[in-house]
């Protein structure tokens, strides 16, 4: 990628062609009020349609997370929405979608780490991918996939976007 910032969770990439005029970014999100209508367009879950899906909701609050300003919104963010623009009603970008809010359970995260390096493996079968490659499925891989699937599909209707100010240099 051309450049990135891991703290802000933003990456800048360079496309081989510029297919539209692009969005002008403004650095200010001041004046945003609780209840203001906001929306994002994106490609969540296994949606592969040609046009992005609309998710609409309301701005709720600002949150400082690790010294990074985030916008808390009541919008349904799902896996695949990440990286999408959060717009206001003037079509101005307010931020970048970075995560849906979930209750973190440290024990689940520890279990997930253990499953990445299990002591004993039990192979069930091999699965074949579209490019012809094969991968063995083990008990730990199946459990990891199940946990990931549950987390990915949990819907809270509360999401977070990193403020657009970090995009302006």
């Amino acid at each position: 990628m051309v450049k990135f910032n891991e703290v802000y969770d933003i990456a800048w990439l360079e496309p081989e062609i510029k297919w539209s005029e692009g969005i002008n970014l403004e650095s200010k999100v001041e004046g945003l009020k609780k209840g203001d209508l906001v929306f994002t367009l994106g490609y969540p879950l296994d949606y592969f349609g040609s046009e992005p899906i609309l998710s609409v909701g309301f701005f709720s609050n600002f949150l400082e997370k690790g010294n990074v300003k985030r916008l808390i919104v009541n919008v349904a963010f799902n896996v695949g929405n990440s990286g999408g623009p959060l717009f206001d009603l003037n079509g101005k970008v307010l931020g970048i979608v970075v995560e849906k809010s979930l209750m973190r359970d440290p024990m689940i995260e520890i279990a997930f780490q253990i499953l990445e390096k299990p002591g004993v493996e039990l192979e069930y079968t091999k699965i074949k991918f579209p490019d012809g490659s094969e991968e063995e499925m083990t008990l730990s891989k199946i459990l990891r996939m199940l946990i990931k699937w549950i987390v990915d599909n949990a819907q809270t209707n509360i999401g977070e976007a990193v403020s657009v100010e970090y995009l302006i240099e």
Partner: protein
Amino acid sequence: MSYYEFRLRGVEILPSLVERVKRNVCMIICGINHKIAEIPVQSLIANVSLLYAAGLISKGTGFLTSDGYVVTAYHVVKKAIDIKCLPCTYNNLLNLKIG
């Protein structure tokens, strides 16, 4: 205009606003262990859930800025060895420079 009226106005103008901004939005698809180019596009689309569940691809959203960059969330592209985007107004996958 009351705040309630303002919110109603928002619902009214949303369709035209979405039409205006959507052309800048794109799907981001990343190959993690495999280069996406090695997978036929139709096969990629048909098997996206399987490939994602197996950790072979990641998928997200991005948007084009006026200075010519595609911006997305870093965690979407963090482990990518191959990144492509599909703008909604364009029929082909575009390569994104990975450095």
